[in-house]
Every structure is written in C-alpha cells, then in structure tokens.
C-alpha cells in the first residue's frame, strides 16, 4: 500500500478495499514519504510485511507502483499482486495463470463490487489487458468525474464530461476507450512488465493515458467498465494533477507518440501554442496561469533524454500502426463542444453578479469597464465635473501659452526641437551609441521612447505634439486627477477640487514655463499611476453594499470586480506598470522612491499585492539596458532628461507646500509688478493659499478615525519618503551644460508628494464631510454650521488653485517672453536674479521658434550622406564663447543624453567639478578658440577630425558683428553669409583631391598612410555601408566618432582591424577595395531588445481592458475547465 499524505482519505479507501465482494488475493501498500499517519494506517490494514516505503520525491505514481511490485511481489515470486498508487495496493486477481494488477489511489475508494465487475469484464476476452472504472465524486456519488479518458489530437488529456454532470447511466454503454483513469486501473501483470509500467517522465498527470496509449499500440485493448465504480476525490489540495503538470505531460506525450520526422514540428508547434496560450491568458488577466503553462511547456520540451527513453520503450512494444488509436481520440469538434458546454455551465452565475453591480449607487473610476462602470443616476452625467475642470484648465493654459500656437516648434528652457520623424526618434531612443557631439558609447535615455510615443500621438510630428503637450498639460492633469480621485472619494465636488488642484499645481506650472518635458510628463501621468496602483492592490473605494475590506494580507474572499474591495486587478497593475515606466523615464530620480514604495506595499500586502510586482517589470525592462551602460557613471541615472537647466531648489518646507523652486517670503510674484516685493508677502500668501487647505485635510485624514486611515498613512509615508529621497538626491550633480553643473530637478518629487498628499486630503475630506450624514439626529443642530464651514472650506479648496493659475496666466500674459536671444538656449542658464530675492513662480522660458537651429545649407548636408556636422559658436558675455557640435538639423531633444551630460562630472556629491577635457572635447575647444581668436591659424585639422563642415555664429549682441568679421579671416572658412540662424561659414577641405569629390567635410573619411584625407564615404547616422575603391596600402577609414571597442567594420565580410586616429575611431583598409560596413554593436543589445519587447508586449496585452467576466471561483474559464479535466488525476 502506497500513500502520500492521504491520512484523511485512507480509512474509507482501506475499508472499501476490504469490503470488496471479490477481495484481492494480495494487497501491498507503498508509502511515498508521507508526513501524516498514512504509513501507520497502511500497515494496520495490510500488515507490516506488505507495506514498503518508497521515498523519491521527484518520482510519481508509476515509479511507486513499480518499486512496490519489485520489492514485495517480484514477477513470478509472489502470485498475486495489486498495487495502488499513493494509497492501496489491492488484491491481485488470479485468472488462470494470469496475474492482474489493480491500481488504487489513496483518495479513491472503489465500490464493493468494483473488482468483481472489472474481473468480469476482462474475463470475457483475452485481448483486453487494461480495464478501468467509472470515476464518481468522493462526496457526491452521482457526480460523474470521468468514464474513460480520451485525448485530443494534441495529446491533451480529456474526460469530455460536462461540469456538474450527473450519473444517470448515460455512459454505461461505453466499453472500448482510449484510456482509463489510473485510479482503479486493472492491468495484466505481463502487459505491465512488457510495457515497463508507467512512464517515469510523467509523474503527475497523463501517465495513465500514456500507458493505455502504449497498450493500444501493443495490440491490446483498453476498456472502461462503467459498472465498476470508483469514488474519487476532486480538488485534492497539493495534488499532482495541476494544470502545468498536465501541460507538461501533454507535451511529453505529443513528442513521444509522434513519428520521428515530425518531432521538430511538434516541438515548434508546442512552443507556439504555449506562446499563444500565454498571450491569451494575459488578455484574460490570468498571467499566473499563462506563465505556469509556458514554463510547463518549456519544461516538457527540454527533456530530450526522457523523451528518447520513452520513445524507445514505446517503440519496443509497438505492434500496430500509430494511426490505430486515431479513431479513439476525441475529434476537435467534440473537444470544442465539450469546452462550450463547460463554459455555459459557468456563465449564468456571473450574470447575477453583473446585475448586482448595476445596483451600485455611486460610480467611480474611469469609463473603462475594468476600472469602474459609469452608471447614470438622477444627478446627471458623472463626467460633468471632469469636463468643467478640464475646460477651466484649458482656458487658463490657452491664455498663458497663447504665443506658442504661432508656430509648430517650441524650444527654450530645457526644451529643444524634436527629430522630424518618429523613426528618427526611435533610432535615437534605441541606439547604443549616443550621437551627440563627437559621440560616445551608452544607451539612449529611456525618455526618448516617451518622446517617440509623443510624436506618434502627434501623427508623426513630434514638434507639434510638444506644443500641444504644453498647452494640454493642464487639462490632461485635471482629467487624470479627476479619475484618480474617483478611486478615493465618491463625492463629486472633491473630484473637481482634486482636478483643479492638480492642474494648477505649482510644479506643473513651473515645468511648463521652464520647458522641462520630463517633469511635465511625470506630473500629467502621476494621477494615472496612483489610480492604477490603488486599483492593482484592490484599494479603490467600493460599492456601498459590499463588504469593506481593510488592509489585509489576503485577497478578499468575496470576489467581485477587480480593483476594489481588496480584489487585486491585473489590468490595473499592468496599466500601473506602463504609467510607471513613462514616469520613471521622464523623471529618473523617481525610479528609486517609487520602486521602494511599491515593493514595500507589495510585500506588506502579501498575496493581495501580487499584482503589484508586475507593475515594476516595464520600468525594469526600460532601465536595464540604460543602467548597464551607466555602471561607471551611476549619477546619470538621476539626471533629468532634456537640456540640463539649473534652478534654485526650494527648501523642504516649501516643497511640502508644493513649490519646487525656492521663493522668498516677501519676494513677490514673478512678473506681476502689482504683487511685487513689498509690505504684503504676496509670495507666501499665494503659496499658502494654494496648498494649505489640502495639507490640512491631509493631516485630518491621519487623525480622523475612519475606514481608510491606513491608506492615508501609506500616502503620508510615501510622500515623506519621496521628498526625503529627493532632497538627498539633490546633492548629486547630474548634468553639465556649458559651465553650469545642475542636479536633479525637484519638480517630479514635489509632484509625487503632491499627489500623495492630495490623495490623503481626499480621504480626509471624505471623512470630515461624511460625518453628518451618518449621525442624523444627535448633531442636527450643527448642520447649518457645518454647511457654512464646508462651503468655506470648499471655496478655499477651489480658490487656491484658481488663484495660482490666474497668477501664472497673468504673469505669462503681462510679461510675454522678450525675444530672448538665441544664446539663452545654451548660455549660462543660472537664474539671472540670484542676487535678488527669488520671487514665486518662474518666468516663461519656452518660446516659439520660427527658424531652424541651423541654416538650411548645413541641415541639408547634415542629413545627407555626408552627415556633415556644424560647429555652432555663440558669443556670450565677457568675451566667453559657448560652442556645440551639432549633427543633422541641430541637436534634438531625443538625441540628448543624460549619460553625455553627466559624463564629465567628477567628485563627491556636493563638491562636484568638471573633469579635464578628453581629446575630443579639447579638440573642439581648441577649434573654437582658434576660430574666434582668428590669429591666422588654420583650424581645419580639428574641424575635419570633428567632421564639422560648417561653422555658425549665433550672437546675442552687437559685438558679434566684429567677431563675425574676424572669423571671415580664418583660413579655410568661407563666409556664406548671415542666415536666420546666424552667420554661416563653410569649411573648405584642405586636400584639393578630396575637395574635387566633395566640397564639405564628411563624417567618414579615408586617410592615406601620411594622414592626408584622400576620400570620403557616405554614411548613415551611426552605421556605414558604402563601396570603397581600391587604393594604396596603409589607408585608414576614419569616423568622426570617439573610438570605442563597440565599433566594428567588415570589408566584403572580412573584419577589419580596429585602430584609432587621435581620439577618433578608425579601421585599417586593405589595398583592394570592396564593400565596407561599419556598425556599432552591443553584444547584449539584441537580447535586451527582445526582453523589452516581450515585457512591454505582455504588459500592454495585460493592460488592455477586457470585458471578460470572472467566474465565481476567480479563475479564468480556461483554468476552470482544466481543473475539471485534471481534478481526478
């Protein structure tokens, strides 16, 4: 007798065994290392001698049976043996000289006449070597589990029994069947030995099917004996018959019973099937099931030895052609019909749930089904508040930013124009070579992917999309906050307050005015992340009638719509993941705090927080390639995307008030003379007005007892953590632009803390104003007082944001951006009023750009095959010059890199300085100095090395005219004239031979052995693909890029030796010409790309809201049906 933790079933099973009308001749028991009293029970029932132990954790039923047989009833020695899996070895029956083995499970009790019926059946014909029982429910003996088994064409184990099917004798006519359940399987001993028992590679599920399959192929028959009944436990905890074991068995059997030539096709088919299953399972929000199936498939596929062994054994006993069993397998039509009926059995119960949902008095969440259903009620459309708030925000934003509509391109502050097409942006975003200046290795910023999305939203025009993003940032924030508020409060007025507060948040207004794209996107998306996280953990506010779930570690027992009442939502978790990826890409300094908070919450919530782990995946996938390339300069990880722009960080108490930039208490309001510095501290008044009502409510939420105080505490703790970590990170310098070292912007952290405190305030408001409705009688006299108080509070709550927005719009209108000189882009960006008291708010720095960054001639060559670069020199104050080496049509926002901006910073936090120039930067500086000093020295050596074919002088003052005149005299520069984008000079090539071929510098040059340029090659942005003519020995092809081991070149497929030319990457060219290919490759790049694609693909699938209903059991329909299939294994 074999048992494994079957103590609760064994007594009945053993009793049933002993009650057999035709008792077994011998019974042996095998215990497979039970931890309960199974062994003792077996010994008591069967006797010490007939019980053995078989402890091999990884083996299954078949191995246990085989071991029991070998030990206690060796073939020929003992006369009669029966063995039962995991339970009982029952009597072996002697029919003539033939020994039969009756396999019994510890959780399956045979009916008293079962053995007799079986023997009766096998006695009729000798061709039957395997007979099985009708499986009925353990508790409910009218519930059919299976009557014979079948498989689909894909070797899936099938019972083809409907859910809740009742035994009315409808299957009693069955005889020959594909397979029978191993519980109660009667096997002729010689066949058992001939077939070498069950396949040990199938420990859990499908071993019976496999055995019967081989039995058929050996020329024998398998019958089910419906009159022999077996009462089998369904849904046994910790059983081996899991869906993943079934999948594994399915794969194994598929590979085992297919002709050898079909093996690879089957394997690939199985893999594809697994992928499809994974995608489908994610679509129906059961990623756990999908992954277990996927891993089971992989596990089934990667056992070539077991498969080979199984195939060998099967081949040895096969007598008849494989197609013999085909007729016994279920047709796909039967399978589909069975599935459909299973689903129909599940569905009706859900419709009642839906009906009860409609009774919900208050809607919440957004319009998508998965977040919350919008229901109408007599108070009018629920979305009116969102529309009103968005319209107000749009009006303010339109007034404040009207000037931006003038043109399709904006720049200024941290903004630069974007590349023209989404494909260019994508190329920049996914590149491992940073095409900035002289180039440098490293992965592009994750933010470039956000820009790519932005340009897709803009219909391919990223610059227009940027303009609209700036203008729509406030209304979008309002709508986002309105939706997020729906998860926390059911009161519409507070949702409007939240929408206004969020769209008028100082952090947003500053981000718009200073053109900080990262902080802006993060602010707009933050409510969505908040909403998605709340729903992912199931903490959103639920229906009035449903059970309120406080913070518990377990999912709520009553399973309703995901996202509320403690039911975790996969959709929301995936949406949170996408929002988090976008936010962390936009504000990398938030990556740490958000991750820590989410991990802590997920850990604390336990299984209820399981979905939250998924939300970390997209950010991780996004940042891994980037993180790998900044291992040596980790400070890049904190850098804000966009141009490094310095600012005056606010002290922590001002950050609590939602102000990212420092202001002086009596510093007045920026740009509003009326509210300038004076007796009334306008700055403080406005800052307090904007934030204090919200803060007070947030504090109230902490103290007022209520159902969601714990949530408020989480919000507060997260806000504190965010601000604290931001303050610490602020000490780390992350970017250099010209001579300014800047740290991470405080805006994103202030935004994050702001939304958390706003959420806490919503909880607080809900509590304060909920009290009177709950206590109608005793405090009725207070009612008018309360009403007045709440009116005042509401006026304050609405008035603060409105005042802030009005001040912002007024300052933008009254102080329209002076035609800022072009130099402001690149010149010293320190706040000009550092000496004065900083006022509240920030002057608008974004401005429309009418003409391109570079003159059209330079752009033409920069984007052509020449890839000519342009050296842009800007004359600044006190004789200083700023310079930049631009590619293409000028440096674009998507080509900027935090790696590049942090590269030159050295030193401990707080004491950073700029490192000594490397050769390329020194060359650039020297070229600029040579040109502007105009001492008659030829700058072309440096310029050609840098690939610069044009020089542009942008000027802020009249002195530039003189500088321009001086530059005219620089040898090698030919004045083209004054363009919209500045004075332009063309650099004439030094070598006349090269000059005949092309009249401007190229990115890729060919140098002869003496180092003279003898030719140029066309190139792409990064790679080169060109034909090289034959020439002399000792030629080199030189790229105007920093040398790096990642560069590699092939000539007609042959790899070229890498070398350098100064700081530039070069390759030795053979004398004979050929087709030259140069690429920059990262060995991990491809795999990271795959990883990102998979993670994002799956997350998007998971985030797609599906109107799929959940079954009562909370499982997907697929899993429900599978449970039925395998429950009785």
């Amino acid at each position, binding site marked *: 007798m074999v048992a494994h933790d079957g103590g609760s079933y064994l007594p009945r099973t053993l009793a049933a065994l002993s009650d057999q009308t035709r008792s077994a001749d011998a019974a042996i028991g095998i215990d497979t290392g039970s931890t309960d009293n199974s062994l003792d029970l077996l010994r008591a029932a069967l006797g010490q001698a007939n019980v053995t132990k078989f402890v091999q954790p990884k083996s299954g039923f078949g191995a246990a049976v085989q071991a029991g047989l070998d030990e206690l009833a060796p073939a020929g020695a003992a006369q009669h043996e029966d063995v039962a899996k995991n339970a009982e070895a029952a009597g072996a029956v002697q029919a003539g000289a033939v020994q039969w083995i009756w396999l019994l499970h510890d959780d399956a009790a045979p009916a008293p006449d079962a053995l007799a019926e079986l023997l009766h059946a096998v006695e009729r014909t000798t061709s039957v070597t395997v007979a099985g029982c009708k499986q009925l429910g353990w508790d409910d003996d009218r519930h059919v589990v299976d009557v014979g088994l079948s498989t689909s064409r894909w070797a899936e184990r099938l019972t083809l029994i409907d859910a809740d099917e009742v035994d009315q004798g409808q299957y009693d006519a069955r005889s020959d069947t594909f397979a029978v359940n191993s519980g109660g399987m009667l096997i002729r001993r010689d066949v058992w030995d001939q077939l070498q028992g069950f396949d040990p590679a199938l420990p859990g599920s499908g071993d019976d099917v496999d055995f019967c399959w081989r039995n058929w192929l050996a020329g024998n028959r398998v019958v089910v004996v419906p009159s022999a009944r077996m009462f089998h436990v369904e849904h046994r905890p910790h059983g081996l018959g899991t869906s993943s074991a079934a999948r594994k068995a399915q794969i194994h059997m598929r590979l085992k019973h297919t002709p050898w030539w079909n093996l690879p096709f089957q394997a690939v088919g199985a893999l594809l099937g697994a992928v499809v299953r994974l995608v489908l399972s994610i679509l129906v929000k059961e990623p756990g099931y999908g992954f277990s199936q996927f891993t089971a498939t992989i596990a089934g596929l990667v056992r070539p030895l077991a498969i080979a062994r199984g195939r060998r054994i099967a081949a040895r006993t096969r007598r008849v052609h494989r197609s013999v069993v085909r007729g016994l397998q279920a047709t796909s039509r039967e399978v589909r019909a069975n599935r459909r009926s299973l689903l129909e059995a599940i569905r009706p119960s859900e419709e009642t749930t839906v009906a009860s949902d409609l009774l919900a008095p208050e809607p919440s969440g957004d319009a998508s089904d998965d977040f919350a259903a919008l229901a109408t009620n007599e108070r009018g459309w629920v979305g009116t508040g969102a529309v009103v708030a968005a319209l107000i925000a749009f009006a303010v934003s339109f007034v404040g930013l009207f000037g931006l509509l003038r043109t399709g391109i904006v720049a200024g502050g941290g903004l*630069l124009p974007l590349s023209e097409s989404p494909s260019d942006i994508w190329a920049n975003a996914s590149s491992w070579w940073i095409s900035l200046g002289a180039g440098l290795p490293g992965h592009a910023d994750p933010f470039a992917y956000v820009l790519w999305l932005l340009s897709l939203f803009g219909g391919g025009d990223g610059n227009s999309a940027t303009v609209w993003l700036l203008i729509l940032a406030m209304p979008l924030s309002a709508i986002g906050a309105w939706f997020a508020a729906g998860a926390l409060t059911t009161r519409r007025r507070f949702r409007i307050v939240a929408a206004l507060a969020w769209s008028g948040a100082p952090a947003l207004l500053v981000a718009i005015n200073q053109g900080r794209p990262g902080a802006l996107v993060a602010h707009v998306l933050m409510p969505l992340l908040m909403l998605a996280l709340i729903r992912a953990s199931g903490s959103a506010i639920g229906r009035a009638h449903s059970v*309120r779930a406080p*913070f518990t570690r377990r999912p709520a027992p009553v399973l309703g719509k995901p996202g509320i009442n403690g039911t975790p939502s996969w959709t929301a978790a995936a949406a949170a993941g996408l929002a988090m990826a976008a936010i962390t890409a936009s504000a990398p300094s938030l990556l740490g705090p958000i991750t820590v908070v989410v991990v802590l919450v997920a850990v*604390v919530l336990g299984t209820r927080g399981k979905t939250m782990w998924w939300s970390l995946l997209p950010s991780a996938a996004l940042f891994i390639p980037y993180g790998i390339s900044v291992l040596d300069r980790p400070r890049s990880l904190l850098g804000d995307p966009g*141009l490094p*722009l*310095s*600012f*005056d*960080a606010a*002290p*922590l108490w001002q950050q609590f008030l939602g102000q990212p930039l420092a202001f002086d208490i009596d510093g007045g309001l920026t740009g509003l003379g009326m509210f300038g510095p004076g007796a009334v501290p306008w700055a403080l008044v406005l800052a307090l007005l904007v934030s204090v009502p919200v803060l007070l409510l947030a*504090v109230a939420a*902490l*103290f007022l*007892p*209520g*159902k969601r*105080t*714990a949530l408020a*505490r989480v919000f507060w703790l997260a806000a*504190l953590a965010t601000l*604290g970590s931001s*303050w610490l990170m*602020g000490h780390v310098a992350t970017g250099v*632009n*010209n001579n*300014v*070292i800047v*740290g991470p912007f405080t805006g994103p952290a202030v935004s994050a803390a702001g939304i958390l405190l706003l959420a806490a305030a919503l909880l607080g408001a809900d509590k304060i104003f909920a009290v009177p409705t709950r206590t109608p009688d005793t405090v009725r006299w207070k009612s008018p007082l309360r009403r007045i108080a709440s009116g005042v509070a509401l006026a304050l709550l609405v008035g603060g944001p409105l005042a802030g927005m009005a001040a912002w719009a007024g300052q933008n209108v009254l102080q329209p951006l002076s035609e800022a000189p072009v130099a402001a882009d*690149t010149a010293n960006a*320190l706040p000009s009023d550092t000496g004065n008291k900083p006022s509240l708010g920030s002057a608008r720095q974004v401005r429309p750009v009418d003409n391109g960054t570079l003159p059209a001639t330079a752009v033409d060559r920069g984007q052509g095959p020449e890839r000519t670069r342009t050296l842009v020199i800007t004359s600044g104050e*006190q*004789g*200083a*010059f*700023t*310079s*930049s080496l631009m590619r293409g049509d000028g440096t674009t926002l998507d080509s900027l890199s935090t790696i*590049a901006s942090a590269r030159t910073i050295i030193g401990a936090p707080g004491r950073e*300085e*700029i490192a000594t*120039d490397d050769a390329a*930067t020194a060359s*650039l*500086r*020297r070229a*600029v*100095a040579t040109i*502007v*000093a105009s*001492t*008659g*020295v030829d700058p072309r050596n440096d310029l050609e090395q840098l690939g610069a074919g044009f020089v542009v002088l942008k000027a802020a003052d009249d002195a530039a005219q003189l500088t*321009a*005149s*001086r530059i*005219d*005299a620089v040898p090698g520069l030919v*004045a083209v004239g004054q363009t919209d984008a500045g004075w332009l000079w063309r650099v004439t090539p030094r070598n006349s031979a090269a000059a005949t071929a092309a009249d401007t510098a190229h990115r890729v040059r060919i140098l002869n052995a003496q180092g003279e340029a003898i030719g140029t090659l066309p190139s792409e942005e990064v790679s080169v693909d060109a034909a090289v003519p034959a020439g002399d020995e000792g030629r080199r092809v030189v790229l105007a890029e920093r040398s790096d081991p990642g560069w590699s070149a092939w000539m007609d497929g042959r790899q070229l030796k890498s070398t350098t030319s100064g700081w530039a990457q070069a390759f030795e060219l053979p004398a004979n010409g050929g087709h030259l290919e140069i690429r920059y490759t990262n060995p991990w790049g491809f795999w990271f790309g795959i990883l990102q694609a998979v993670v994002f693909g799956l997350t998007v699938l998971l985030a797609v809201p599906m109107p799929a209903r959940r079954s009562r059991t909370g499982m997907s329909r697929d899993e429900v049906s599978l449970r039925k299939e395998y429950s009785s294994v």
Partner: protein
Amino acid sequence: MSEDPKKQVDDNGKRGSAKDARNSAKDARSSKSARSSNKGIITGVLSAAVILAAGGGAVAATSMVPAPSGGSAVDIRQADVPAGRSLGVCPEPARLVTGTEVDTDAEFSPVSTTATSALNALVLSNPAGTIPGSKVTSLAGDTVAEIAKTPTSTPSPSSGPPVLAAAAASISPVTAPTVVGADPIGNEQASVAANLSYSAKDGDLRGLAAAPCQKPGNDAWLLGSDTALGRTAVLNLSNASETPATVNLDLFGAQGQIQAPGARGLLVAPGTTRSVNLAGLAPGESQLAVHVRSSGGPVAGTIQQSVLRGLVPGGVEFLSSGSGPSNLQVMAGVDIQDAAAIKALGSKAGFTDAVPALQIAVPGSTDAVVQVRLYGANGERQLPNGGVVTVKGGTVATLDLDGVPAGSYTVSASSDVAFVASTRIARGAKAEEPTDFAWSPSSARLGSQHVVAVPRDGQSFFSFGVPEGRATVSYAPVTADGKVGKSVDVDMSGGTTSLIELPAKSGQAVVAGYVVSASGDPAYGALILGRQDRADVSVLGIQDAAAGLEKVPVTVGY
C-alpha cells in the same frame, strides 16, 4: 498597517444587532470592543503623530544643513589659442595723388626729389634666446628680405634671467606696401615691431612721416584726416590675408556722419592695396574721422595726410589707428614748441591746422562731455578753458592746445561716453617756411616687453607719461647686430611726462630699437621722430607687446 478601529466598531455593532436575544453576550462583547477600539484610536493617533513628527523633523533637519543648490556655475574653461604669425602691415611711402600736375619748374615741383624711405624691423627672441623665423614680404607673400631664419631647434626656456637676443632689418628705400611677419615659437607669438619712415626736403610731400606696421584688423578708427582746400587725405587699405575683404567706411565730420555711397562695399582683393581719396567721399571736411570696418579678410588702413598751403608745403603724415572707442583715451608724445609763435601762426588764415590740437570723435548718438588733462614735465598743466569740451554724438570736434607752454606733454581725455581721440603736433612757426605736423593716436598703457623699432637716421625721443600714481619705465637698447643692451629705468611720479632723447649708437653699434617695459601705475609712451634743425616731426605709438599665450573662455554645450 494597523487594524482599523472604526471597522471593528462596525463589525461589532453588526454582530451585536444580529444577536439581539443574547443581551448579556452582547454587553460583554461591546465592553470588550470599546476597549479594543480605544486602543485602536490611541494607536492611530500615535502613528499619525509620529508621521507628522517625522515630516516636521525632516523639514527642521534639512533647514540646518546646506540644501542642494540645484545648479552652480563653475569657471568657464579657458582654451588655449594656438599662436599665429605675428603680422605687421607697413604702408607704402608717401606718394603724390595720381593726377597731380607736375610742373616743369623745378623749384615748385610737387615731386620730392630728396624723398627717402626706410623700413625698420626688429624681432625679439623668446626668453630662451631663440629668435623666431621672420621676414619681410610683399603683400602677396613674396619675400623681400629675411630678418631671421627659422630656428632649427627651440631650446626650452631655462629658469633664471631671460637671455634675450634680437634680429633687426632695415630696408631702404621701400617702394611698395610690405608685410613684416614672424612665426610663433611654440604656442607663443613672436615679439616683432616695425615701422616705415618717410622724409623729404622738397616737393609737395615735404616733411617727415612715419607709421608703425600695424596688425591687420576688421575694425579701426582713423582720426586726423582733412579734406579741405590744399589738404590731401588718401586712405590706403592693405589686405595681406588670403581672403577677400569687403570694407565699409563710416565717415564722421564736424556736422555729423557723412553719407557717402562710395564708402560702402570696397572690395580689397587678397594681397593688394586699395587707395581711396577721402576728398572724393567727404570733400571739404577739415576734421574727418574714418571708421574702417572690414568683413572677410582683415585689413590694415593708414591715411596719408598732406598739407599744401598755397605753394608752401605744410607737412605730411601717416595717420594710423589708435585704440578703439573707450571712456578714457591717453595720447603720449605731445611735444609743443613756442606757445606764442604758435598762437600767432594759428591766427593766420589757412594756418588753423598748424597748431597742436586734440581731436575727438564720438561714435554713438550720445553727446560726450570730455574732460581733457595735460601732464607736462612738471605735473598737470591747466588748460586755458578748463579742459572741458562737449562733443555732439556722431561728430568730430577739435580742441586747440594753442595756449599751452612749450614742453612735452601727455594728453588724457575722459568721458562717460565712449569716444576716440588723437592729438596733433605741429612744427614750424613761420608762415612762409615749410611746416610739418604729426598725429599721436591714443595708445594703450605700457605693459612688459614692447619692442620699438627706431629709424637709423634723424633724432628720436621717447616720451613717457604717467597720469596718476607712480610708475617705472625701463628701456633697453637693441643694436643692429642683435644684442640687447642694459636697460635704463625711469622712475616717474604721477602727472608727469618725461622726454628722453635717444642716442643713435649704443657703444659702437647702431641702435636698431628698444625693449620697453613699464611697471606700477598706468604709463603711456610714444616715439617722437624729428630732424636736426628742421621742422620735421612724426610720432609713433608704441605697439602692443606680443600677446604671449592667449586664452579664450570656451564652454561646450549641446
């Protein structure tokens, strides 16, 4: 995450109402629940207080330590400018304007038969004694003479006192504009100075004229030209670069800016000189300031100014550019002779420009109130009218210095508006005899190691002026054979001017020039040239010292 107290209350309440019948049980339960609910409230309040205290503590703590700045500017990195060739473009000797009638009468022939010209160049070694390769070429680049060969090796400067050497060249006569060029040594520019001197004893262009060989530039102010009757002003623009230059001239007269269509877009081809007769652009202007702006190649511009009063030559001079517009202009080497004779002469018709005078041009539109001070040998000399003159914006004004007693002076002019200035020096007191004049353009303060080339004939004087404070000026003679002599220190107190006559020879060797250095408060200097027993005069400003290692602040952005 503590258990929510309110929740417990609710739960207990529900449970209680469901079991109304069992009152005793309910009582026991509710008292128990009240206890646990109290406990829950206390924990809740405590945890809330802890959270708030943490927030307050963070604010308090961070306000005590330095906050992150958000952004800080660092010093802009200086980029070394590679030293280029030191260039000096020398004017050609004075020539008659083409079209001048040449009479047969030898006595009154405008052609000067006695005209001589000389180019004197001096190249100083670096501290290690290496003399940079240098030569005199034509504008087009053809070598005229070599001053020093390109050194084969450049020993690195050793510590200790510098070992100076020099090379000098003197070319006579000179027939065309020339360029004096010297290669840089390492990353330092060569110290080179050269001048062209012209003198004639007869003809219309009688007198002494000298001009330093200037570094070509794109912006220059030339003061002192005169296109009134009998005055001839010819602007010579030389382009020694390989880039064509387009020159625009802004002309300022006594009444303001003069619009002259021919003054725009003058093309000067590489390696050529273009002459412009200013009378064709601004006729009849007795005080004319020319602002030369060139785009493309840099040009060197000089004006050949000559005066003919009837048949009597009134002198000739090369006007060269001084320092650019500034609030303070100082002109050294203002040597004034007999005050009474000058006054008498100046009062005669046609002789108003035969007196010393200060000319001021104001480029901008704002009027300039200029305070003029004169520093003589014995200190500051008051001007008769108090020395304050108001010059309208965009005009040129002349302040006569005819009331000043004889002596050598330094003129300092200051205003709160940028202006340019130059001072005229006149020689000759008799109306019937030929006179001569010179212009001393404003100059920069003396630094260290200015190289001054001195013509080998005639008299020469150094005039040093120290307007304020105290300064020491030292000068060391350099002989034609390249030796640098012992330096002579002149200690000067503020407000004084020293006139030093220079010997023709130092020891046995001919003096080719001097190395002049100054320390202390700002000092200014000029070289005055003259002829023994003649009314000839010319003033040469001391050229800027070699720039040494030049740096430009350059930042690198995106």
